[in-house]
């Protein structure tokens, strides 16, 4: 089902945890639809110095969180802004079709953390999850 890369990040997730004095925090999803992701960033000199996540979600959610944090750690805000769902999924050597929406979570949470750092308001929670839970209900 999952690629070796996904399983690697699932088994040994990188950057798990919280940051006490985070400069930005982004949260997406809600427990009702089954997935929540929270990303904490520490920014210095326009660069993501440290990043941590916590995820309540499926294997794909855990793996995308892990790889997304790894992909942007040490990168500039501008570079991090370019992280998309698609790039996350690609970096994991793909995801099963029904799990593609999970990759949204990580990129969305990161963008929200960046928004939060930059002081941009953003209320919408994970759109993908909303869609899905409506679709299946």
């Amino acid at each position, binding site marked *: 089902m999952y690629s070796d890369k996904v399983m690697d990040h699932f088994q040994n997730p990188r950057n798990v945890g919280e940051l006490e004095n985070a400069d930005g925090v982004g*949260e997406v999803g809600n*427990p009702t639809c089954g997935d*929540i992701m929270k990303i904490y960033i520490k920014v210095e000199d326009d660069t993501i110095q440290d990043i941590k996540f916590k995820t*309540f979600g499926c294997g794909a959610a*855990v793996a995308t969180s892990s790889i997304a944090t790894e992909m942007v750690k040490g990168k500039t805000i501008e570079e991090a802004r370019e992280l998309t769902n698609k790039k996350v999924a690609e970096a994991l050597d793909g995801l099963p079709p029904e799990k593609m929406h999970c990759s949204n979570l990580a990129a969305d949470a990161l963008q929200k953390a960046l928004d939060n750092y930059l002081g941009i308001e953003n209320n919408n929670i994970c759109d993908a999850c909303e869609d899905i*839970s409506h679709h299946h209900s």
Partner: protein
Amino acid sequence: MKRVYLDNAATTSTAPEVLEAMKPYFTEKFGNASSVHSFGRENRNVVEDAREKVADLINADDSAEIVFTSGGTEADNLAIKGIAMKHRDEGKHIITSACEHHAVLHPCEYLEEYHDFEVTYVPVDEHGMVDQKDVEKAITDETILISVMMANNEVGTIQPIKEIGKIAKENNIYFHTDAVQAVGAISVDVNELNADLLSLSAHKFNGPKGIGALYIRKGTKITPFMHGGAQERGRRASTENVPAIVGLGKAAKVALEELEEKQEKITKLRGKLIKGIKEKIDEVTLNGHPTKRLPNNVNFSIRYIEGESLLLNLDLEGIAASSGSACTSGSLDPSHVLLAMDIPHEIAHGSLRLTLGKYTTEEEIDYVLEKLPKVVDKLRAMSPLYDQ
């Protein structure tokens, strides 16, 4: 690596003696059981012999009341659509429960959508239990069928089928029970239950996959579901699946012989597993009825963690378990059964089902009790919900 299989409600291994019984019917005795020649006739006999054994397992009066199908799903489809299509002129109302398997719910929905049937889904309580009074209240002049499962596949709750069957009988309504999880696990008697129709599936009790049966009480008229040849006395078309039928017959025989012993052994192991989980992991709730439950079913909600991650982690330890509804995995929704029991979404997402089987050992239970708490710790440490 050690491998511990605790997903026996999803499917069981075919017992070696069952496979042994099936083997000759693939390559040597392969005839079409409906043929006139000896290759066919010898198979006709073994098919009828298997029918007897299935009848014995559920205490049917006559083996002619058994129709072989391709599994539990087909048995459910045949029962529900078969009664509905045959008796639609007498009424178009069906009563079922909110915690049925999809093999019952979806045929009901099909009848609603395509045939203007009305279906009442009676609720269940927090233990997944149907109240027979709700069934009785739901009856109208139009009601032609009541279908309530004997035991739930997710939480193991055993329903008051005898009582519901009695109500159906008193009101002259056909009564079907999906006993796919019950047959082979607990004692099942179609007469005691007042069942007019009863579904079973071989692969749930160490028989082969792809074969099941519907019990149809003598005199109960149904429209066939699988249309074609005249097999199964015109009630189910398609070339008889002789090896699988032989396998079902053998599994039925073994199940009947071993029933008491197996029940006792498994109930004891289950007790140990439930006790151990409660002791070793905090914030867990046992789902399903505390006592009226299948001997092999353990179902816990483990707060703050999500089902698939839990399963994958257990799998990495060699433990096979399930979460939500095993038969519809691939869906992102939490199980309709847990939701019907009013378990909140986020807790339903973290459900874990461990189902024991005839080959489960105490050592395996010990292994799970050693590994599961560690996996839960790991996932909770990652969970944004845990220390909130």
